[in-house]
């Protein structure tokens, strides 16, 4: 054995996948905090338990969010991580960077922090991993100077994110990047100054493939889709067939609505678009031959979240189709109405989906002014416990 102080972690330098241990060691060369992180982590590997204390509430002036406080429970052993807060930096939409901007981030972080980052956090922020309370404000000042701002944390709007969309994808039915960016800019106050019952997440995917997992991970999911016929290029369809694609087996048979027919004889593909539910499968398999329909917009869904407290939720359709063009007034108005209802009625630590579930979808729809449509449900209710509104009841005096 070596006389390494981190024999367990050293094991994780081996193997073909990039090693986070190497990263920490690299930073540790310059940064005592990174070195103590390594040492504390080794202890965790030995003890099989974390060595951070609970919580921590620190921040920068004028903001209530953007920093996660963290303190070691063994400051005696690891004094350089006694305080080891992370700063959540709002990423540029779509996670696009020019290197000069990235380098600036690195410089700032070398100046103020551990030299370790997460690119990116699973909400999407550029996470600067580990600094002390004293460095928070100066670090923020430098970030701001460099054109960066913090992302969300706490009971705030969290940093919205978007799929790469129109920047690099042929299927984008909406401008996911612009919508996300405009939402981020418009709702700055909500991001920085927590004022909701709990966190609120917005994600934008420009088609139903949902490359940012909007439907699973956001309280409000905006997902591109289209109306009308899928655009078919018959020649390219034949080209796929010629190239050996089994169109019946790989496309038609897997179409969830079985609305496609491939005729081997005359080598044509017929799509009964009225039955298509725009699942994207056929387009995914034959991108060169099929394109989304021309009338484009988004479905809006709400309620998605991880399990705590009532169990995980996938988002629910509340608007089947909304045209989305700048300045996205209809969308932002709707978001405002939704947040207002939630903020007014939600209990502490109650996500939007849980509130709708507790009070009933009908109350939500009425409050935000949306009509009930069958697209909102997999199927109508099976239980007979139906409420009627007072105005629907015959008011004749009951004997």
């Amino acid at each position, binding site marked *: 054995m070596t006389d390494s102080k981190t024999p367990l972690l050293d094991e994780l330098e081996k193997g073909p996948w990039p090693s986070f241990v190497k990263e920490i060691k690299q930073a540790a060369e310059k940064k005592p905090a990174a070195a103590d992180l390594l040492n504390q982590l080794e202890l965790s590997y030995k003890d099989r338990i974390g060595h951070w204390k609970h*919580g921590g509430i620190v921040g920068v002036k004028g*903001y209530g969010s953007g920093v996660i406080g963290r303190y070691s429970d063994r400051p005696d052993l690891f004094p350089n991580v006694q305080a080891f807060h992370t700063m959540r930096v709002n990423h540029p939409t779509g996670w696009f960077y020019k290197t000069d901007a990235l380098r600036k981030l690195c410089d700032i972080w070398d100046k103020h922090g551990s030299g370790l980052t997460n690119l990116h956090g699973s909400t999407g922020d550029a996470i600067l991993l580990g600094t002390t309370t004293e460095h928070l404000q100066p670090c923020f000042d430098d970030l701001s100077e460099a054109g960066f701002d913090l992302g969300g944390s706490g009971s705030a709007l969290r940093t919205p994110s978007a799929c790469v969309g129109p920047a690099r994808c042929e299927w984008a039915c909406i401008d996911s990047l612009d919508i996300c960016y405009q939402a981020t800019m418009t709702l700055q106050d909500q991001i920085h100054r927590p004022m909701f019952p709990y*966190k609120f997440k917005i994600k934008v995917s420009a088609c139903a493939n949902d490359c940012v997992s909007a439907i699973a991970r956001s309280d409000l999911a905006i997902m591109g889709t289209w109306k009308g016929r899928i655009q078919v290029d018959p020649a390219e369809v034949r080209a796929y067939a010629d190239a050996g694609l089994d169109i019946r087996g790989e496309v038609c048979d897997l179409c969830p609505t079985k609305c496609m027919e491939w005729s081997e004889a005359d080598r044509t593909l017929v799509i009964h678009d009225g039955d298509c539910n725009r699942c994207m499968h056929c387009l995914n398999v034959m991108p060169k031959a099929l394109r989304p329909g021309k009338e484009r917009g988004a479905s809006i869904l709400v309620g998605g979240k991880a399990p705590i407290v009532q169990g995980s939720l996938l988002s629910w359709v509340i608007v089947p189709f909304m045209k989305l063009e700048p300045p996205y007034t209809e969308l932002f108005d709707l978001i405002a109405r939704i947040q207002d209802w939630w903020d007014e009625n939600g209990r502490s630590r109650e996500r939007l989906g849980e509130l709708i579930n507790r009070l009933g979808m009908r109350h939500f729809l009425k409050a935000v002014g949306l009509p009930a449509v069958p697209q909102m449900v997999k199927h109508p209710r099976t239980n007979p416990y139906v409420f009627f509104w007072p105005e629907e009841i015959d008011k004749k005096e009951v004997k």
Partner: protein
Amino acid sequence: MPTIELAGKSYEVDEDGFLQELDKWSEEFAEAYAHVDGIEGPLTEEHWRVINYLRGYYQEFGIAPMVRKVVRETGLDLKRIYELFPSGPGNGACKLAGLAKPTGCV
């Protein structure tokens, strides 16, 4: 646990400066502690409006009120509250009001 000296008394606080013995809170504590959170000068009526509301609510319900409630009940908008308490209602105002450290959602 760190200990902090304010106006001649010593208080146990956590790393973030939150009081660890809630019954030791006093108006003097709040006044003396204000500077720690970047408040310049003595606490104003508006500061006290927030602090008193927080304490009253906490005593009645055992929890800190939600931000919307604070805004509504104190008549101070969020912007003003951040002016009064630069580190915000959770970190700043609750700390001075001697409430348990807000947890949950970070």
